[in-house]
């Protein structure tokens, strides 16, 4: 389940945010603190999670303190499904 979430998130980020469909993202790679997902794309990520998993991420949670990696985001989603 968690792996499936990670795969979907990784594909989305590579394709729609990084615009590099071939890019492989590691589950423990820093996304926000590294600037890989810039602040202007955080809202895209929240909307994708909402559409795909039916889970809402509040804008106050869109920061590295809440989640910074795919694994952490997947765990957050999993806990709310």
């Amino acid at each position: 389940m968690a792996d499936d979430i990670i795969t979907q998130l990784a594909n989305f980020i590579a394709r729609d945010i990084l615009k590099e469909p071939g890019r492989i993202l590691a589950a423990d790679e820093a996304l926000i603190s590294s600037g890989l997902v810039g602040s202007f794309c955080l809202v895209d990520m929240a909307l994708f999670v909402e559409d795909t998993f039916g889970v809402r991420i509040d804008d106050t949670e869109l920061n590295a303190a809440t989640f910074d990696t795919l694994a952490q985001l997947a765990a957050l989603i999993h806990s709310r499904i």
Partner: protein
Amino acid sequence: MPTLAEILLKQHDSNPERVAVHVQRSGLADLPISWGQLVSRAGSFADLYARHGIQAGEVIVLVQEHGEALISSFFGAIFGGQIPAIMPFLTEKLSPEKYRTDLANLISVTQPAAIITNTEFEGEIRLAVSEGSPVRAIILTSEAEPALAADFDRLPGLTRPPDSIALLQHSSGTTGLQKGVALSQTSLLNQVEAYRSAIRINGDDVVVSWLPLYHDMGLIAGFLMPILSGIPLVLISPFDWVRAPQRLFQAVSQFKGTLTWLPNFAYNFCAHKIRERHMEGVDLSSWRAVINCSEPVRWDSHRQFFEKFRAYGLKFAALQTCYAMAENVFGVTQSDLDSGPKIEQIDQQVFLNEHIIQQSTTDHPAIVMMSSGKPLSNTEICILDPKGHALPEKQIGEIALYSNSMLTGYYRRPDLTENAFRADWYLTGDLGYLSDGELFVTGRKKDMIIVGGKNIYPQDIEILVNQVPGVHGGRVVAFGVFDDDQGTEEVVVVAEVEETSPEHHKTISNEIRQLIARNSAVAVRTVHLVGPKWLLKTSSGKIARSANRDKYLAEVKHP
């Protein structure tokens, strides 16, 4: 002319209970700050600065997040007669080393007597303040009293001379931070008066802003102008807005907001990233002007914004433009709120080759240009050719301005100040033309490429490359590289593309070359296709041409 401190006290005295600023922070309840609270807290900060021995006329750098303490510590400096300069704070994705270097550079040029910050940023700031630094005190906002019955008649700010420096504004990036625009009280008040009359500020107005206060648009239009005018202000954190852009619309609806300033990208951002559920119950009919400012204004951005939000009561007539810069305090021009910005369809080929504006004919491709309006009542504009001669209407040249709200100079940089003026005129470094008295901004002078004696404006090439399918819109840069063999500059285009296959790259490169060949006077030497996020942007989101040029040259040298 009254001092800023006198104006603040007068606003206070007219009704201390009235709300001056509504501060919004996501996850927290709205914080209304009354005039009574604002003046009392500002008095506490003035007292705090005095206790630290900071004198009138000395610079205080403010490094804080959006919030009540930032507002109060700013006005505390105005009351104390010090010169406040708001600087961006370190965010989680910025490199701390880079931030520290920039801050150290700012300190060495500006020579501030104090930095006021909070515990979150204190450690980082201490690292940037070395032995022998001019900074005598790093002050924490928590040291200020919650409220203070200060002796308001004896505030040093009340007796500051009209030509004294009221504040410094810095633009982004390493260079920008070393170049503080020093603005006198007189300039500031002249600007507020001229701009206020251009947009006909009245007692029903409510300004809603999410703009950072370290930027002229945020500091003047979205902060000082409403406060000095006694107009209620709703301040949303820029940090919150970028994560939830709907907050702007919700705040306009909640407070019946009438005026907002936005950079061009924000029109697209809001049009694309807001869902219907975010807009439930939102009514935008109170919005009388949404003013596009601080980067090139695009008609298509207005169109998208209007189509998205018309269902929520947004009036088409609310979409306005302005041309502004810190060196004139803020506004230089403003579109007429009755008729809106002027739209022109101009001939692309004549524009690129001759820098002359001609109405497009049916057989030539057209560019849609949107004006930034007419000069404010206190400001004159002149379009200059490279020799400094005034150009007639519809010819592109450097925009020069003269007004009674200009900068005193770049703080402690007489060299830069001298270069920025020709006689009494400030040379903006921006390119544009006038048409029926309306200013159209077309680009910037300093990135000009000269190919075989012909001036090429990189933004013109970039507009073309942006049209090529497969190129990531807006993520394109063109610049000149000197070719020793040819004895002139050659045009290089770097464009971000999504496709990675060599066949696709070939197709895209070919299309770029063909489009430029067909639509401009030059041929492109090199098309360098790169992946997403390759291009460097400044902290204000502009593509940094010279930095990308350096990056490209390094990559070509050591691939």
